[in-house]
């Protein structure tokens, strides 16, 4: 979510290399060199000379993993997503790699392009290393972002009216289908978006800048869903009551469940308490994105680096077969009365999906798989699958 992105094939540096220095570009791509492209915000004052561009085309040094030499003979290393300049460069401060993208030459062989925070050579002014974005974190941020400008007050009133009439109608939806709840909420979100985009200050720029549009959508969703959360979530809970009751009946009977019963790998056991604590905050969030980030933090803490028992040098890989048992354990132990309602709120009421929603989608699928597995009464089968973690030290 918080990662920088830009379309490198539109980046002025990349275009200059490809269009103005076609020979260099051909040699570089045919030989599958790694190309460093300074991010668009850092190119102010950059001199697009052959010499400066040469400094960004890298050839790996044989037998030395992270070392490179540029086509004009300068040395550098890239490690842990940081470029460190060595012999031949005048400046030596480390430069972050923002992201990498795999490109293909005419023969469909790959070469790596790294988007870096500033030029390695040839920067005359210290530019903005990364285009700045407004980061919206709190409810106050959202309200200032949405209603701060001129005309904001009027629009806020209109959105609040729509929210009021939505809440009024919710009572009639009670006990009715989930689809109706989703449709009604989606309509409310769309209506609020239309009102907000009437604002001159937002409309034009938002339609031109997809990142700004994403922020508007996130802010609108946060505002609207925070306001309707209590009655809406109660409605969702009653739609999913049967599912949740069934799950709760099963988890109540599994009080004795131990980590080893679920087959959690020993190496990951000690990450469980932190994940459990993170996930414990789930009910304190009122927006789908708030809950999603809570889930993400919980899963991320399950993936914390763990010391490997035998130092083979191989990294320890956390696979879906490792993640699922841990989530199953958490679902059983958390005493959350409305897992299905929470899951549904995150999957079906999050309308402001960003372009990189996939990661959340994966966490949601894992949580759903865990709920499904426990709810289907698979626990006996599950307890048979134990081969690992016999000596797990985690105690309840």
């Amino acid at each position, binding site marked *: 979510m918080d990662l920088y992105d830009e379309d490198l094939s539109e980046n002025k540096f990349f275009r200059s290399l490809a269009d103005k220095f076609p020979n260099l570009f051909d040699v570089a791509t045919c030989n599958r060199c790694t190309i460093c492209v300074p991010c668009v915000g850092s190119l102010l004052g950059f001199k697009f000379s052959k010499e400066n561009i040469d400094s960004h085309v890298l050839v790996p040094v044989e037998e030395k993993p992270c070392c490179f030499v540029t086509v004009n003979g300068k040395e550098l290393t890239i490690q842990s997503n940081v470029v460190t300049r060595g012999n031949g460069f005048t400046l030596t401060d480390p430069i972050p790699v923002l992201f990498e993208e795999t490109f293909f030459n005419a023969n469909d062989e790959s070469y790596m392009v790294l988007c870096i925070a500033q030029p390695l050579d040839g920067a005359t002014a210290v530019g903005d290393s990364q285009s700045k974005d407004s980061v919206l974190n709190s409810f106050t941020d959202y309200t200032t972002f949405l209603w701060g400008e001129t005309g904001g007050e009027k629009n806020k009133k209109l959105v609040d009216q729509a929210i009021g009439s939505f809440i009024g109608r919710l009572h009639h939806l009670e006990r009715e289908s989930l689809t109706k709840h989703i449709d009604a909420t989606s309509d409310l979100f769309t209506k609020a978006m239309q009102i907000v985009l009437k604002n001159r200050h937002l409309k034009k720029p938002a339609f031109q800048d997809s990142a700004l549009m994403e922020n508007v959508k996130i802010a609108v969703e946060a505002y609207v869903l925070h306001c309707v959360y209590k009655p809406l979530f109660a409605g969702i809970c009653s739609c999913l009551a049967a599912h949740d009751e069934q799950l709760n009946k099963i988890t109540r009977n599994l009080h004795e469940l131990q980590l080893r019963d679920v087959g959690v790998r020993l190496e990951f056991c000690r990450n469980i308490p932190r994940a459990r604590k993170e996930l414990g905050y789930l009910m304190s969030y009122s927006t789908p994105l708030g809950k999603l980030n809570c889930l993400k933090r919980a899963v991320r803490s399950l993936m914390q680096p763990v010391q490997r028992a035998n130092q083979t040098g191989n990294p320890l890989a956390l696979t879906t077969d490792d993640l699922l048992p841990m989530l199953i354990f958490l679902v059983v132990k958390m005493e959350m009365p409305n897992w299905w309602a929470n899951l549904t709120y995150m999957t079906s009421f999050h309308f402001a999906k960003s372009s990189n929603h996939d990661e959340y989608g994966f966490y949601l*699928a894992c949580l759903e798989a865990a709920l499904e597995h426990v709810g289907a009464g698979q626990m006996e089968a599950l307890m048979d699958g134990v081969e690992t973690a016999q000596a797990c030290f985690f105690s309840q």
Partner: protein
Amino acid sequence: MATSSSGARDNSFKIVLLGEGAVGKTSLVLRYVENKFNDKHITTLQASFLNKKLNIHGKRVNLAIWDTAGQERFHALGPIYYRDSNGAILVYDITDEDSFQKVKSWVKELRKMLGSDIALCIAGNKIDLEKDRHVPAEEAESYAKSVGAKHFHTSAKLDKGIEELFLDLSKRMLEKAGEVEQKANGTNRSTSARRNVVIVDDEPEQKSRGCCS
């Protein structure tokens, strides 16, 4: 929060890996997304969900690669993982005949559940163990052809055939996305499986335009 603009040329595709336990699904993905610029020894490798950005001759492709649970006890959860995927890689171990039969049953299940919307690749993995091969190459290839899948010979150990596999799958997903788009334009916006909220800009010089992906 989103940063910078990502244009209409961006394509996000979801790929699932399916196959019997221990055929090398996780090894294939890890090899493919291997970050040569990161010190491997410090962190746990997140092998269950991985992202990779490609730029295929000007078309940006964002791959979300989902590792599925291989353990038999989780088999019933398969649909939760593979639904909405644009591509699937079905992996078998060339030294293990049973794992190839398992691929066939996955193909049947995927075609039944997802129809022809999904692009399929079959990977015969561990070709470094050629001397122990138990699945004849011709048989696997002709089977793949018969179900509209592409077959690749891979080795996660020797890093063979993996990049070709993902590139080919990505190209075919791009093709399918193109077809869908054309159809949608022809019929004036068809229904899509994923829920879209469309904000219509009512200013005349900008035609109606969805802002959600």
